[in-house]
């Protein structure tokens, strides 16, 4: 099976597929949230290319251990088993209570329509503009605001020092900086090392900066603290009259020493989701969907420096009381050599835009044709989407 760029697997095919992961879906028809105007939707953008194969590890796939000799885990070596085939990276184990409450799902082997380039900027642009190329200048979450039937469901907030693309566009959205400056992620520090590598005096100064720690006034806060603060801020605003929020977690570009880098940033993601839940309170949480997505997944094989390189298929995270959770969704393409995209990447079998469309339909009652014409032009999506099942 080959998938052309931009195409998505038939959703009906999902049910018939040889998927070993998803629990048999319960085919209860979906109904719009009981109290319109109370539903909430949060996006978390994972910048840098989150390695879905590290977060949700297919330890049941025969090829996995060979492809990931040092990064791959099993329940015997600490992996938190999810369903007998997939397991959760232990760094994110703070999410397990949500899994047990059916408030957490993962969708595996998904991607945006971005293919081949494997460049962060273009990948993130398409993740945020919701298009099939980088030309669209507004964000899909911003375009969503115009088609939400109830005006009181349109109050949206981006938490960042300036408005991120996903909420930029013609429709009103608010922007608020987090409570502190986010400390640099490990991958960002690694890039600074490379930036200064060709200039000896700068390289020497950078070494010393790293040795003594960034003491500059701009870094007021520990990184994990500020990620949690962003989530708390979002939760607090959503508990009031905001209904849509978005923020980003950087640090996923794990080319080297992934085991430690990924662990710390995966821990932050888990902590952010838990903080969001706490800040929302039980009632609001029950009506919330959180969608965490990245610009692309990473190469299925480990590289020579204990990391992974830019890839294609990856994982989307769904959390919240409004999620029918407790399962790993998606069509598992397999990791055998002939199942990989270009012989190196996890084959995408689903479009992250469809997940987003399904959640927006579910939360706000937006008609599918509006979603496929105005929010995600060209997307194939209707009420029979697998992401609306069960």
């Amino acid at each position, binding site marked *: 099976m080959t998938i052309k760029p931009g195409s998505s697997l038939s959703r009906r095919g999902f049910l018939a597929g040889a998927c070993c992961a998803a629990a048999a879906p319960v085919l209860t028809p979906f109904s719009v949230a009981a109290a319109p105007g109370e539903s909430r939707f949060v996006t978390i953008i994972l910048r840098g290319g989150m390695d879905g194969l590290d977060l949700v590890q297919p330890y049941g796939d025969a090829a996995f251990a060979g492809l990931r000799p040092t990064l791959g885990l099993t329940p015997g070596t600490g992996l938190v088993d999810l369903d007998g085939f997939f397991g959760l990276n232990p760094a994110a184990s703070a999410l397990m209570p949500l899994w047990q409450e059916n408030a957490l799902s993962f969708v595996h082997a998904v991607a945006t329509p971005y293919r081949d380039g494997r460049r962060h900027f273009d990948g993130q642009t398409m993740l945020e503009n919701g298009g099939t190329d980088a030309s669209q200048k507004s964000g899909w979450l911003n375009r969503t605001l115009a088609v939400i039937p109830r005006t009181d469901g349109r109050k949206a907030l981006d938490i960042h020092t300036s408005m991120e*693309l996903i909420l930029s566009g013609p429709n009103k959205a608010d922007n608020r*900086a987090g409570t502190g400056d986010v400390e640099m992620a490990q991958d960002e520090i690694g890039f600074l090392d490379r930036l200064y590598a060709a200039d000896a005096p700068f390289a020497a*100064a950078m070494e*010393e900066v790293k040795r003594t720690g960034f003491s500059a*006034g701009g870094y007021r806060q520990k990184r994990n603290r500020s990620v949690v603060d962003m989530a708390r801020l979002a939760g607090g605003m959503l508990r009031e009259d905001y209904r849509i929020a978005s923020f980003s977690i950087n640090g996923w570009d794990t080319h080297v020493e992934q085991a430690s880098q990924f662990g710390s940033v995966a821990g932050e993601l888990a902590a952010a989701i838990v903080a969001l839940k706490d800040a929302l309170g039980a009632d609001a949480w029950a009506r919330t969907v959180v969608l965490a997505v990245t610009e692309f997944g990473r190469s299925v094989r480990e590289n020579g420096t204990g990391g992974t390189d830019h890839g294609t298929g990856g994982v989307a995270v769904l959390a919240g009381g409004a999620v029918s959770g407790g399962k790993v969704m998606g069509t598992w393409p397999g990791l055998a050599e002939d199942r990989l995209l270009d012989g190196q990447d996890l084959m995408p079998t689903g479009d992250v835009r469809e997940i987003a469309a399904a959640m927006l339909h579910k939360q706000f009652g937006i008609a599918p044709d509006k979603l496929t014409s105005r929010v995600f032009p060209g997307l194939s999506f209707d009420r029979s989407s697998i992401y609306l099942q069960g």
Partner: protein
Amino acid sequence: MAISRPTLAAIRYGYGLRPGEEPPRDAEALLAQLDQAAKRKPRFPREGAGGRRETASRVMSLRAAEAKAAKDGKPNESIRKETQKEALQIYRQDAMARLAQAILSPFGFHERLASFWTDHFSTSALKSLPMRMVVPLYEAEAIRPNLAGSFANLLKAAMLHPAMLIYLDQSDGAGMDAPAGRPGGRAVNESLGRELLELHTLGAGSGYTQEDVRAAALILTGLSVDRRALEVVYRPRISEGGSISLLGEVYEDDEAGSQDHLRMLEDLAMNPMTAEHVCRKLVIHFVADEPPADVVAAMTAAWAETEGDLKAVYRAMLDHPRAWSDPGQKIKRPFEFVVSGFRAVDISDKDLSRLLDEMDDDDQEDDGPMRKALKMASSTAARADAKQRAARANDLTLAALQRMDQPIWQPPSPAGYADLASVWLSPGQLSERIAWARLMAGRFGQRRDPGTFLDAALGDAAGQNTRDVIAQAPNTNHAIAMVLASPEFNRR
């Protein structure tokens, strides 16, 4: 890879590239800026020179009256506080205008020279409360109009400005053997004479003696500041009389004019030691920490030939091949770094005003439009927001310069700010610059294409490694921050 001449002209002799601004093509284009810029008034002091004198005079009279009342047992704390606050706010407005002037002016060479000479003839806004208002006036009326004429005129304008006399404690004639003109009486304050010889003209180690310092100080006696009018005045009754010799010249007070100090300044301006000292300093500032001797020699020759015509001196530097070779040896000073960063993101006049407004909104008693709105909302969240916005605007501008050790108009000593890579390339400095670059990227870098931004900021000065790293950065924000934090952007 050789850097093209326009790129080098903008980075080495100006405040860097700015989108939409044609970089100077060559030496002639740089020199032409000096004529063009001479016709423009700087953005500070905000009320203009005359207006500033009125403001300062009013504030100082209020404080003088309060001080007098306090002596009589009737202090007025609120007058003290309010005038303090007003002076601080005026300083902040002017400092932001100073920043805007450097960022938005298309005459980068003129702007760099304005900074160079303001620094050469250092005064500090930290000296006293009135100085917060007087130092901007000093740069606007003593330095800027005179930086492309003769050095003698610039020297006289700087030395005979109230800011210099206040800064070096000559303002009240204090420190002089005032009442009876008895040199053997109280000690003469030598600081003005000392800095004149050591910093402003001959230069340290040029061979003058302690007697010369004392002689210069004596010749300068009688100069004082009329604090009401904010003008330098000459008070013969406190001047040292008699004839004083300095470096082989004899200076004598004549009863009528007492212009001996002017003659001394003119003589010092023509002294070859002065030419050597100042030309070296110019080359250290613009070209290299270790100034190439042949460039300095070409400049001192022009100095001698033209009796210190500064434009001819600049031309001698710019016409030298070394002025256009070996790029990147200097580390930008913090002010240059910050200004060039704002130019790279092409900040508008409006956005700069907004930063100042955001800072002002933090003043609790200040009733700006934003503050009024906040009062009505009376929401603590909104207030906290405004506070945070104010802190951020400050972190991007004045506080950033403070943390990087080059606050506007506050040099650490009369010698001005350091100008060597050993000072400005340190771990602490790099840490601050990275932090600032990240703040800038967060506020102004959103949705920029990193490759386009790199070209706009550095043109062909960007090396291959930097290009590669920027192209592969894990997110746009970090890419934009790395352009500003890159070695090429911090060198010139």
